[in-house]
């Protein structure tokens, strides 16, 4: 009985207009924003566009009564630190919300410590709390492989994994899980946890940024904070990027953000020490090459 009613309700239209759906759902806006706000990442953007089309078509089929079972949307993002995984996850949450695959569209970002407890009986409630908070949205698990510690057979991570797998399977309509981390470690993680591999439909690789891309990212960040480079400080930034990349703990765009934060600090110091009398907005927002050149990277040190 109920099934028949369902079918009737589903098939409410006889024609769909994909282009119109694309615009009216707001998916077009999000993809445009993704293109504009993120520098580089071409393979990632292509994959997301493909996935968005697939999901849009799926929804259209559903409205025509061509019922398919709800697709698996769980994803894995692999790439080095600071390659924009969290940022993209946030965009995907918005995308899935517009497409009607999640009800709220918020992103809950966690690591092992948020899921795994310290003593017996601590882990299950902790994991469930996080899962419940993420329902209606996207759960982003950074460095997911730390959940699995085969060297310690009594590690509570296994308990979190089991609950996670269960919910990923049984509550597919309620939340989307994104596992993120370094590529090689993720690959190993999936090898030893086939349960995850089979539940994840979309694997997306995040490439490292080129020096040019990082410089472009630096410019976007700087103007986003209402600061400006000039020709000389831009050159200094380019040089900084080249040197910083060769150092340990290089974290792509995140390293750039940190460098800019420190440059702002030095800029403020410089402006404060050199200014007598009233100064204008131009002066306050100009980042000079000295603000960058004073970094430890240029004197053989290491920037975090």
């Amino acid at each position, binding site marked *: 009985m109920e099934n028949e009613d369902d079918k009737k309700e589903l098939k409410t239209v006889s024609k769909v207009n994909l282009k119109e759906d694309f615009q009216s759902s707001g998916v077009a806006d999000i993809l445009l924003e993704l293109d504009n706000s993120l520098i580089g990442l071409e393979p990632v953007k292509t994959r997301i566009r493909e996935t968005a089309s697939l999901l849009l078509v799926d929804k259209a089929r559903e409205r025509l009564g061509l019922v398919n079972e709800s697709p698996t949307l769980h994803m894995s993002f692999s790439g080095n630190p600071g390659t924009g995984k969290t940022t993209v996850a946030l965009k995907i949450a918005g995308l899935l919300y517009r497409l009607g695959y999640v*009800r*709220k569209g*918020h992103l809950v970002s966690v690591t092992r410590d948020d899921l795994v407890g310290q003593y017996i009986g601590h882990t299950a*409630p902790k994991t469930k709390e996080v*899962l*419940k*908070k993420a*329902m*209606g*949205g996207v759960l982003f698990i950074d460095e997911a492989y730390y959940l699995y510690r085969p060297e310690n057979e009594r590690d509570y991570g296994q308990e979190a994994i089991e609950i996670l797998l269960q*919910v990923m399977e049984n*509550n597919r*309509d*309620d*939340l989307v899980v994104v596992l993120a981390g370094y590529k090689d470690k993720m690959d190993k993680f999936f090898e030893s946890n086939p349960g995850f591999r089979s539940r994840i439909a979309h694997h997306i690789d995040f490439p490292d940024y080129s020096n040019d891309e990082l410089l472009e990212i630096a410019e976007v960040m700087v103007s986003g904070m209402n600061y400006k480079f000039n020709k000389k400080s831009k050159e200094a930034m380019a040089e900084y990027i080249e040197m910083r990349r060769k150092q340990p703990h290089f974290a792509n765009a995140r390293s750039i953000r940190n460098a800019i934060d420190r440059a702002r600090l030095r800029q403020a110091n410089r402006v404060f020490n050199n200014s007598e009398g009233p100064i204008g907005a131009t002066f306050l927002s100009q980042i000079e090459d000295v603000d960058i050149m004073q970094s430890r990277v240029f004197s053989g040190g290491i920037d975090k």
Partner: protein
Amino acid sequence: MRVTQGTFSFLPDFTDQQIHEQVQYCIDNGWALSIEHTDDPHPRNTYWEMWGHPMFDNPDAAAVVYELNECRKVYGSHYIKIVAFDSSPGWESIRLSFIVNRPTEEPGFKLNRTEIKGRNIQYSISPYSSDKPQGSRYK
């Protein structure tokens, strides 16, 4: 005898989808939700057992339905209700409460008559099910 109490007592039992929508309404109003269960349906039994903590910060109703299903796994033969609390007056006050699970068989209540002074009669009711000890009432 079908026990009724709470906000939607005059309606047939809700489906999970309907429960989801009511709960979402509560969440969108900023109310905290609690799941409570009992095997003593006496109308004056106001303190039911709590299933975990009240839930304050889950934006989506799926979280509550998830806990409800967990609770059903353990207490599927009991009464379960969902209670919504509003803390905006400065204290937690119940805004809404409704039964979401009930035993398959509800034997109902026995009416007791006690004759007291002056041939007056004092009435009381007691659930047939509560003759058995707590925990073994509905199987």
